[in-house]
């Protein structure tokens, strides 16, 4: 029972972690809470359903399910990256030098826009994921792990690992770290800050799209307002781990998923969303910069 809940929690937590990466990367560079990030995740889930629906009507899903799913994920990632890129250029770039709260309000505006855009074009009712995964899986220490759960955990781990490598080993990753430390100094040493910011949004949106497709497959239904609560949870995860820190977002997401699943199993499932926030408040009161966040002394 406990192990089963741990596996369930880990699955959800891995998805939170992947979404949280987008928040934390943008925050690390721009100090902007990108409220529309949850909507990108929602768009990803919808795109997954749309593309897989097309493949299903072509008969591809029935004959080759794995390539169809893979292609769906790739296509939604591409589109969501384009959404992330456009969003940054249209709504945040003009506000680069505005007061700090202006981009936040712009993000809320984008969020309202995207929610209603999806509601108008795709309808206000639940959309069903066109492919049903069976309950088959494997037994591991008396716990039943479905193939879907295993692949969600594996894909998330692979994404986080490759992102870590990307940030640590590549030129662009180095530029991102430099921009996160000091945007002005980074531009002075010849880093094209605009490109770095665009890349951050593209990567974050791509990750959110993968998370969206995985969740749509996991729960089977999607609605146009799923982005909000997932966004809030992922942001909570990012803050929990220490916002701006990439390993922190991963850790925060997994803690959040575990707390939720254990809390709803052993205390009461009605207050599922409350546990996340209670844990957050407790951790922040003990460690005001999150678990892995660096405590920076204020300079005068």
């Amino acid at each position, binding site marked *: 029972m406990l192990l089963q809940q741990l596996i369930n929690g880990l699955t959800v937590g891995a998805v939170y972690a992947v979404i949280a990466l987008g928040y934390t990367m943008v925050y690390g560079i721009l100090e902007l*809470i990108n409220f529309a990030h949850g909507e990108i995740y929602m768009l990803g889930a919808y795109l997954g359903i749309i593309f897989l629906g097309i493949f299903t009507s072509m008969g591809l899903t029935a004959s080759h399910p794995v390539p169809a799913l893979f292609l769906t994920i790739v296509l939604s990632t591409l589109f969501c990256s384009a959404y992330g890129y456009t969003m940054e250029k249209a709504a945040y770039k003009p506000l680069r030098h505005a007061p700090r709260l202006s981009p936040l*309000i712009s993000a809320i505006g984008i969020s309202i826009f995207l929610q209603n855009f999806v509601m108008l074009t795709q309808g206000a009712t639940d959309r069903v994921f066109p492919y049903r995964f069976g309950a088959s899986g494997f037994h591991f220490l008396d716990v039943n792990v479905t193939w879907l759960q295993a692949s969600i955990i594996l894909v998330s781990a692979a994404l986080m690992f490759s992102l870590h490598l990307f940030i640590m080993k590549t030129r662009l990753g180095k530029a991102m770290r430099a921009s996160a430390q000091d945007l002005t100094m980074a531009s002075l040493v010849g880093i094209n800050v605009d490109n770095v910011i665009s890349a951050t949004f593209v990567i974050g949106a791509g990750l959110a799209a993968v998370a969206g497709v995985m969740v749509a497959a996991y729960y089977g239904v999607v609605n146009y307002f799923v982005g909000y609560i997932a966004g809030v949870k992922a942001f909570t995860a990012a803050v929990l781990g220490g916002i701006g820190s990439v390993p922190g977002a991963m850790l925060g997401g997994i803690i959040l998923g575990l707390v939720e699943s254990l809390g709803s199993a052993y205390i009461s499932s009605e207050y599922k969303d409350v546990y996340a*926030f*209670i844990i957050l*408040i407790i951790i922040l009161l003990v460690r005001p910069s999150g678990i892995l966040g660096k405590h920076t002394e204020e300079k005068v």
Partner: protein
Amino acid sequence: MRRFANSPLFIALWAALLFLPFRDLRSAGILFALLFAFLSLMFVIKKVKPLSCLPVRLRLPDMAGHRNILLLCVPILFFTFPFFMQNYYLDVLIMFGIYALLAMGLNIIVGTTGLLHLGFVAFYAIGAYTYAILNTRFGLGFWICLPVSAMLSAVAGALLAAPALRLKGDYLAIVTLGFGEIMHITLNNMSRLTNGPNGIIGIEPPSVFGVSLGRPDRYYYLVWAAVLLACFVIRRVTGSRIGLAWLAIRDDEIAASTMGINAMKYKLLACASGSFWAGLAGIFFAAKMRFVSPESFTFMESALVLCMIILGGLGNTYGAIMGAFILVLLPEVLREFQIYRMLVLGVGIVLIMIYRPYGILGGGSESART
């Protein structure tokens, strides 16, 4: 390449491509044609980059010279509304008043003291539910509940702030957001006290000497009397030593502490007094609707009130009222567009921010930051 990326053709194509998966080719084609026509028109008119030419920088007329006339005319105009307006418009104006109270309250916390608070709706809910429960369970009247609701909200505001204020900036924001969510979920699940998602019905409207104020024209005066009172009190307080301390904390907390301001005490005071007005707005809302349910107190409300004060101009009391005016009236005006109105509202918020980053009336001070 850059010129091509900013050309109307490219932008229209790009938008149509992004739109395509959500609808069919035909709709994407229509969108492309409309957008291309519109952007080309703009391009020809302005001969500059199409995005930067949409509406030219909004410039408000200089009102300083006409201030006295304006200050005289607006109240008279507002006073005469119930004589000729239909109930529907009065209801909209009553909601405008309630949101103006909320916006002014939040403005103390976010605008004047610089604490980003995302769970403000919790105190609105406390005010509304306090009256709903006291009235339907214990039969207490509006006038007794009025101070009780407002004070309870203020105390709750200070109690939440006491631990949360150890955090800075966005950490404070997420903790307050969490508190708002916890409140929403608790209201939904504490069925014995709050009747869960069904809400509480049968709340009595206020009455004076046996005359019910439930009619929109009477209630209108009651709400706007409260707004005027709030406006007066808040402007007096922000002009006093307390308000100066708040501004000092917003601009530089360390410097303020060095000058002998007890930052913690003043931040607590700001949270308590902001929440006080939210509680007041809550009781007015409950008595107006005669019904409360958790659906009215979601994060969207907090975000909407935050939008109001930033659209109007952070730290500016009149700006808060202006913001409430825009965000309450705009959806009503856009009712003709029916289902598209929230879409337009989202775009509108982004455009206002891009063209007036300091808010429509401008902020209280250029260094507004949190």
